[in-house]
């Protein structure tokens, strides 16, 4: 068989040429005569197809049967032939759908279990480092602590105050609407007081910090990890937990209770504004009822949860940061994951605490 190769073998005609090549490949063997004299433009895409059509061996010996070809084309064809002349990689095995779904479920469950173990381990490591550092004031990172207190605490005051204020007003409105049917609008005061002291103050502050600071911790430590800075800290003989985690955890432990207190005050203020403007309850009356009906224990129950939430939020944020591997995409994934986990853990712990306090009658 004789084959004459003519025209432009370029990327622009790749699809059509490739179909021709697949059709003709089987019909070309060692005895076929090939003529390249009519060949027009040639680029790497076309050269690749020519190599596929004629086979790498024939291209390797191209000088013998196509001596008229310019040297640079010879070099291109040879380079492409050498590149293509290697064993084809095995196609990745095609999974089957049902099995893949099962495997995926299995992997996810295993990952949840592994994650919880990692979290417990990390909590242990953090506490251990904290205990080792406490008796040595020279190793306290006060500058870093102050920076994180500012970033997680002071900077979050406006948003926490505004949000709890608005939720306080909403709760008061809801209470007023429902209680009005019973002629008991005065109990709106109790509703706002109870809900904010026991639950909403701490919960809203914690959820906001979970979104704000857990993500920041994960992103900060994650980008350090992907930039090998964490490894650099280790090789300098320093402890990343002591340098990076402790200041963040301690800052959260200090700021979340304060933010909780801010949240309680401003939530109650929101309720107060609604009571004064919409329900004709005077501020004096509002505070008299608060002082008479609401024991200080409710405040303590609310505030007592703050350090626990703070610890878990900070630890989850830092742990997700350390789990980042290499790529920038991984930083994003772990940042998202840190927020989801932190909010989940906060609400879970809050539910457990509510049950516990109820059973205890506190």
């Amino acid at each position, binding site marked *: 068989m004789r084959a004459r190769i003519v025209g432009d073998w*370029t*990327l*622009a005609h*790749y*699809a059509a040429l*490739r179909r021709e090549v697949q059709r003709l490949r089987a019909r070309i063997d060692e005895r076929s005569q090939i003529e390249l004299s009519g060949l027009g433009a*040639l*680029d*790497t*895409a076309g*050269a*690749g197809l020519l190599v596929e059509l004629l086979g790498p061996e024939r291209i390797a010996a191209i000088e013998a049967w196509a001596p008229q070809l310019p*040297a*640079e*084309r010879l*070099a*291109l064809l040879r*380079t*492409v032939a050498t*590149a*293509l002349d*290697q*064993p*084809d*990689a*095995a196609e*990745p095995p095609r999974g089957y759908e049902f099995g893949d779904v099962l495997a995926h479920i299995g992997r996810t469950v295993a990952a949840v279990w592994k994650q919880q173990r990692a979290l417990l381990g990390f909590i242990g490591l953090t506490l251990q480092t904290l205990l080792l550092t406490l008796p040595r004031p020279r190793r306290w990172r006060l500058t870093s602590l102050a920076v994180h207190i500012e970033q997680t605490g002071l900077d979050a005051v406006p948003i926490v105050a505004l949000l709890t204020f608005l939720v306080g007003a909403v709760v008061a409105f809801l209470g007023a609407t429902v209680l009005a049917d019973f002629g008991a609008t005065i109990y709106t005061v109790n509703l706002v007081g109870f809900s904010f002291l026991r639950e909403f103050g701490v919960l809203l502050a914690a959820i906001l910090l979970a979104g704000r600071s857990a993500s920041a911790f994960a992103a900060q430590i994650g980008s350090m990890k992907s930039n090998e800075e964490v490894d650099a800290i280790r090789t300098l003989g320093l402890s990343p937990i002591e340098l990076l985690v402790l200041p963040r955890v301690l800052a959260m432990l200090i700021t979340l209770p304060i933010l909780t207190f801010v949240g309680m005050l401003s939530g109650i203020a929101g309720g107060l504004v609604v009571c004064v403007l919409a329900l004709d309850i005077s501020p004096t009356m509002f505070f008299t009822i608060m002082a008479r009906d609401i024991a200080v224990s409710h405040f303590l129950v609310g505030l007592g949860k703050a350090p626990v939430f703070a610890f878990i939020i900070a630890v989850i944020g830092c742990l997700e940061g350390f789990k980042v*591997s*290499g*790529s*920038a*995409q*991984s930083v994003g994934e772990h940042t998202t994951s840190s927020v989801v986990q932190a909010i989940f853990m906060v609400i879970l712990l809050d539910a457990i605490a509510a049950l516990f306090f109820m059973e205890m009658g506190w």
Partner: protein
Amino acid sequence: MTSDDALIQVRGLVNRFGSQTVHDGLDLDIRRGEILGVVGGSGTGKSVLLRSIVGLRRPNEGSVSVFGENLLELSAERRSQVERRFGVLFQRGALFTSLNLQENVALPLIEHAGLERRDAEHLARLKLALAGLPANAACKYPDELSGGMVKRAALARALALDPEVLFLDEPTAGLDPIGAAAFDQLILTLRDALGLSVFLVTHDLDTLYTICDRVAVLSRKRVLVADRLEVVEATDDAWIRDYFHGPRGRAAQQAADLQEN
């Protein structure tokens, strides 16, 4: 091979970052079919120059004309057509992390050459092989690869559309000497066969001596000299002397001489 018509003309380029001036009245031509090596100390703005030429950075003053047109003044559609004639290899590869290697290379082929996915990935595997990657790397993701392999894959993506101008930002940094030599050879072969022009930012003296037609030296905020290597070497300037006649420069020169004889 080298003809004198300038494909890219940089005139009076000024780039400032805040109060720091990186380029001040820089002129440079890139001619059709040549391999232009750009050298300069750290922080002399080699990468900034590259970014200004491909239109990623708007220079504070001056003009950059590419194929006779100013990229920054073109309409979006026209600009995209011009950019298709570029291939850019970034310093750290800049592969898309969410795509595997063959998808990375196939992306421009699908978007611009209008190939179907199957054809595009077939061609992408050829480009990866050309860049010196083994066949089993095609389905790997960038974060599973070493730095050198990322570089090769990025070269394969830069070559995907057989561009007319290839911009390479330190292509051989992080490659082993064998890989770097093969890389140089590949660039040379492609230039000869396809008439590419290559803008090559490099610190690799071997690359300079082996494949560059002209060398431009960036120093003191402008192009000090841009000419054949012999002329550049002979230029009377302290930095150039240290660069080309220091121990590494001499070794690379001898190696290149040996190769030629």
